C-alpha cells in the first residue's frame, strides 16, 4: 500500500550520495526547507550541485550547507544576500562554482526537466553575457536562446500540508519553485507542517499531485530563516 512517510528528517534524506544534484525549494526564506537542509548537513553528503534560486542568509539552512563545504556548484539566479558572506567567500576563493541563470529561465528549465522536454527556446538573455556559448535561433523575427531542461537526483521542498500519498499544498508565496522542483527530482522529499490522510485535501486544490513525491516527513513547526538569523543562530 502507498505510504510515503519517513519517520524523521534524517531518514528522509538518508539516500543522498556524494556528487548528487539537489534542487532546494524556496525564494529567499519563503519555502526554504530548513529542517531538511539541516538533516542533509548532518547526513554528510558532499560535492553537491545545488539548484536553488538564492544562496541562503546568515549561517543556517542553505547558507550553512554552503559554509559546511558540501556544495561544489550552485545553479541559481540571485546568489547575493543581505545577511551573508558565506557564498561570496566561497565564490571568490573558487571553492564553489556558480552557474548564473535568469530566474524565469531557471524555473522553465526545471519545469522542462520534469516534463520530459529536453530543450526549449527563449528570448530571455539574448545579447547579454548570459547568452555566451548558447545556441541562438530566430523565431518570428526574434532571436532566442536554446536552453536545456534540468533534473536532479533529489529535490528538497517544504509544503504547508501533505497527505501520506504525497499530495501537496503550499503557503502563499512559499509555493515558488517547489511545484516544478517536485516534478524534476528523481527522488522528491517533502517536509510538511501538516500531514493528513488521502482525501483530506480537496482534489481541486492539490497543487503538487502525489505522483511527483517520494518521501514525506512531518515537521510541525518549521523554523523561519529570518528569525534564526535575527537570533544569531548557526548550524550545526
Amino acid at each position, binding site marked *: *500500500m*502507498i505510504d510515503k512517510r519517513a519517520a524523521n528528517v534524517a531518514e528522509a534524506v538518508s539516500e543522498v550520495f556524494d556528487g548528487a544534484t539537489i534542487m532546494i525549494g524556496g525564494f529567499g526564506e519563503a519555502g526554504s526547507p530548513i529542517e531538511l537542509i539541516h538533516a542533509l548537513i548532518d547526513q554528510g553528503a558532499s560535492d553537491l550541485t545545488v539548484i536553488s534560486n538564492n544562496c541562503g542568509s546568515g549561517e543556517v539552512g542553505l547558507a550553512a550547507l554552503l559554509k559546511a563545504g558540501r556544495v561544489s556548484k550552485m545553479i541559481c539566479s540571485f546568489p547575493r544576500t543581505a545577511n551573508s558572506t558565506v557564498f561570496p567567500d566561497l565564490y571568490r576563493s573558487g571553492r564553489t562554482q556558480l552557474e548564473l541563470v535568469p530566474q524565469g529561465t531557471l524555473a522553465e528549465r526545471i*519545469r522542462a*526537466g*520534469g*516534463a*520530459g*522536454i529536453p530543450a526549449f527556446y527563449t528570448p530571455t538573455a539574448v545579447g547579454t553575457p548570459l547568452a555566451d556559448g548558447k545556441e541562438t535561433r530566430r523565431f518570428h523575427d526574434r532571436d532566442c536562446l536554446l536552453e536545456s531542461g534540468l533534473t536532479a537526483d533529489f529535490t528538497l521542498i517544504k509544503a504547508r500540508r501533505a*497527505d501520506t*500519498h504525497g*499530495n501537496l499544498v503550499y503557503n502563499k508565496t512559499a509555493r515558488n519553485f517547489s511545484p516544478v522542483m517536485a*516534478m524534476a527530482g528523481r527522488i522528491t522529499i517533502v517536509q510538511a507542517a501538516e500531514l493528513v*490522510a*488521502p*482525501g483530506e*485535501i480537496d*482534489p*481541486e486544490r*492539490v497543487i503538487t*499531485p*502525489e*505522483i*511527483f513525491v517520494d518521501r514525506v516527513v512531518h515537521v510541525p513547526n518549521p523554523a523561519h530563516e529570518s528569525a534564526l538569523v535575527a537570533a544569531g543562530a548557526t548550524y550545526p
Partner: protein
Amino acid sequence: MTETGNSIGWSREEMAGRLAEDIPDGSYVNLGIGLPELVARFVPEGRELVYHTENGLLGMGPSPKEGEGDPELINAGKRQVTAKPGASYFHQSDSFAMIRGGHLDLCVLGALQVSRAGDLANWSLGGPDDIPAVGGAMDLVAGVKSIFVITQHCTKDGAPKLVESCTYPLTGLRVVDRVYTDLAVIAVRPEGFQLIELAPGVDFDLVQERTGARLLPVAETTSHV
C-alpha cells in the same frame, strides 16, 4: 481448437487479470481505452494502484453509481468515472508533463500490431478515407516507463497482430515491453518476442503458428520487467 474466436485460451477478463498480476504495488498506471480499462477490475489483494487518466485526473476510481455521475468527471474514453480519496485534478499540460516526464510507471494499451522490435501501431489503419485520430497514444508510448499491450493474439480475420514489422502507421518505435493476449504472455526482448507464459490448453507451437515473427521459448530465468 478453432482458428478464429476465443474458444481457446484466456477470456478478456482473464487476460486483464493476468496482466494485473504483473503490476507492482504502488504503481502509477494509465489505462488505454477499451480492453485496457478492464485491468482496473483486477487489482490483486494487498496492492494499491493509482490510475491516471490523461484528460486530467490522478486517482481515478470506478464508474459512478446510477444517477451519481458528473458529465464533467470523465476518463480519456469520455466515460463517467469517480475520484478516489487522494485524487487530484490538473490541466492537460500538467497531465502530459506526468506522462512525457517519465513519472508514470506503466501504461496499458491496445494494439493493431506490435513488431518484434517493440514498435506499436494502434491509432490508424492508414486508409485513405480514415479519419485519423491519435489522442494521447504517442505521448504515452514516448513517456511512460513500461508499456504493456493487451490484445487478442490475432485479428478477427485470423491475421497475426504480433509481426516482424508493422504495416499500419506507427504510434512509436521500440516502445512495447510486454504483450498480453488470449493465448500467451510475451516479452519484447532485444532478441525479439519471448514467451513468458502460455494460456491453459495452449502450446508453444500454436502461439508460434499465430505469430508473424519468430517466438523464442520461455527463458530459463525469467527476468522481471
